[in-house]
């Protein structure tokens, strides 16, 4: 059964964002969410600015390294 155009638009919109943000590297999407959550706890919860400044880029590098290494082993 062919769905109506608003449904197709919504499905297409959702699919675009899914491909854009998750795509074939769901680990990077999850890592980014996790990193921001951890840094939010450090900065907003524990009020540690210096630790948050260091943790954010280091966690990003760790996520990139793990994802690239996984692709290499695949």
């Amino acid at each position, binding site marked *: 059964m062919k769905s109506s155009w608003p449904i197709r638009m919504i499905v297409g919109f959702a699919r*675009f964002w899914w491909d*854009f*943000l998750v*795509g*074939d*590297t769901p680990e*990077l*999407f999850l*890592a*980014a*969410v996790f*990193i*921001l959550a951890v*840094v*939010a706890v450090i*900065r*907003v919860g524990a009020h540690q*600015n210096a630790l*948050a*400044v260091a943790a*954010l*880029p280091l966690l*990003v*590098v760790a*996520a*990139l*390294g793990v*994802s*690239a290494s996984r*692709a*290499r*082993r*695949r």
Partner: protein
Amino acid sequence: MVAVFLASAVEMVEALTIVVAVGHTEGWRPALRGTVVAVVTLAALVAIVGPALTKVPLDALRLVVGGVLLIFGLQWLRKAILRATGLVAKHDEDAIYQRTVEKMDTEATRQNHRVAFVLAFKGVFLEGLEVVIIVLTLGTSARRLGLASLSALAALLIVGGVGVVVARQLSKVPENAMKMTVGVLLVSYGTFFSGEGLKIRWPGDDVALVVLVAFYAVVTWVFVTWMRRSPAVAVAS
């Protein structure tokens, strides 16, 4: 705005490849018509969504935008690293051209110019949509939507102008080097803006952005060097 310009240029080279393939195969009129309709649609999208985004509280906007840039930048950087180390085939514009021509050969006989229009429109619209997201996210976070739009427009004019001259020699564009640069810039902006959204006070304020770019550039170089030295196992996606 360098990030907007480079990202726009990379996406536009891909879109241009499709348009040139369609134009050569089925004629320039439907190809250019599809391109113009797609560009106008994308410009309307920026005009409608852009001003609305400036009404959102800055911290919330920077957190969301920073998160999106971080994810998108990491995807680009990962892909560029894997391509630089030979684990993934480099993006071949000649292959895109050939695939588009083959698609036209099988479908054009049935629907003629309509297929050419749709292929050109889809190519420009889908590649352009990524440009629009980068323009909107970087432009609204820095409160410089006009400048970001102008950077994308400059990339459009330059890539379009070069495309007219070189037409099928698009594979000569050093796409992976550009993609790696854009990846570094997007991850740096993503880190900076999401940090500001989380109320991080960066040492040196905006100077921290330059430090982040240098840091991620060095890290990328280390990853590429390390992965080139270690034996590759298989071709990944």
